[in-house]
């Protein structure tokens, strides 16, 4: 294809610029993501619902927007996203009990998925009956139904992820901006 031949004809500087262009597409996306995380004060401001444990409020594939204002107390009824020690995947469930104790207002929270029969104590690490404020990444403040279907597809079929990244990378490498 002509585009690849054009790559071969470039002098080292032009090639370096092309490679940097590819990088900048990625880094711009990443920096926007990190920036969004800074604004919302949470490490993952946008998450995709992976299970049906919160139906009918959330369905698999919905996109959730999170916020984590430092001074906002967690109250019963809030839908929170939390990560259990030792686990990578965050869980989105509702707060069914919340206790505040002591002069420093430490919070202990019990969560349960709306669609689950039991509360989350079975998910917490052995011996842990409550989760603390620190384990909570944020509260859900917005929802876009269905928009996360791509993430679900890529989770179920990991080769899709590789294919998508590969194709996008190739396209970025051969497309030259107006120089």
């Amino acid at each position, binding site marked *: 294809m*002509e*585009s690849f*031949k*054009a790559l071969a*004809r470039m002098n080292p*500087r032009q090639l*370096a*610029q092309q490679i*940097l*262009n590819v*990088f*900048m597409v990625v*880094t*711009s996306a*990443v*920096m926007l993501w*990190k*920036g969004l*995380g*800074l604004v919302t*004060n*949470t*490490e993952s401001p946008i998450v995709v619902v992976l299970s049906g444990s919160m139906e009918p409020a959330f369905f698999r594939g919905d996109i959730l927007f999170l916020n984590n204002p430092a001074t906002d107390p967690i109250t019963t009824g809030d839908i929170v996203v939390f990560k259990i020690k030792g686990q990578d995947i965050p869980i989105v469930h509702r707060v069914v009990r919340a206790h505040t104790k002591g002069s420093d207002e430490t919070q202990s929270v019990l969560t349960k998925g709306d669609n689950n029969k039991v509360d989350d104590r079975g998910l917490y690490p052995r011996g842990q009956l409550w989760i603390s404020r620190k384990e909570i990444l944020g509260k859900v403040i917005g929802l876009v139904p269905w928009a996360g279907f791509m993430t679900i597809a890529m989770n179920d079929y990991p080769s899709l992820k590789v294919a998508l990244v590969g194709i996008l990378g190739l396209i970025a490498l051969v*497309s*030259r*901006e*107006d*120089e």
Partner: protein
Amino acid sequence: MSKSKNGDSGEPVKVFKWDGVAVKNALDDAIREVMTKKLPYTENFNLMDGRLLICGLAVGIAMFALAWDFIYPFPKSKPILIGCVGGYFFLMGILTLYTTFKEKGIFVVVMQKDPAGLDPDSRWEVASKMKKFDDMYEVTVRLIDGKSGASRETDFKRSVADFIDENGVICQDIIENQIMKMHSSLTAAKKDK
């Protein structure tokens, strides 16, 4: 139509003639060939290096932010992240300013040595412009005299169809003709001074 030599291997350059960006870039490359190979001038990379530096710095900052955030997870990484994200987008702004005001469509700069070896080099800059979905290719050739600093320029605005045949092959000889004409006129004007 004559198929002329181009490119380092001597193969004629072929582009997908309906892709405006590819066509413009191929024509720019053809002009670069004339300025550096046909004419005895050496290419000056300062303009390009400046852009590479800004982009490289931005990517470096982003990589650093990623690495730091990986080693010291959020929220411990917050201050560094704020600095890096801010710095990254600041550099993006600088890049836009650089491309708009410094580069200004210039895609090749060459230095012409003074034959007597006394005066500083003169500089030739070639810039091009082509609107999206338009076939008009506008090229400006500028000569900045090494001694006086005075600049003189000439330009042309022609359809890309003048330089490419039906198969999308770039006609290097037609480009060469056009550029050499402009080169002679600017050189002659310089001598008239």
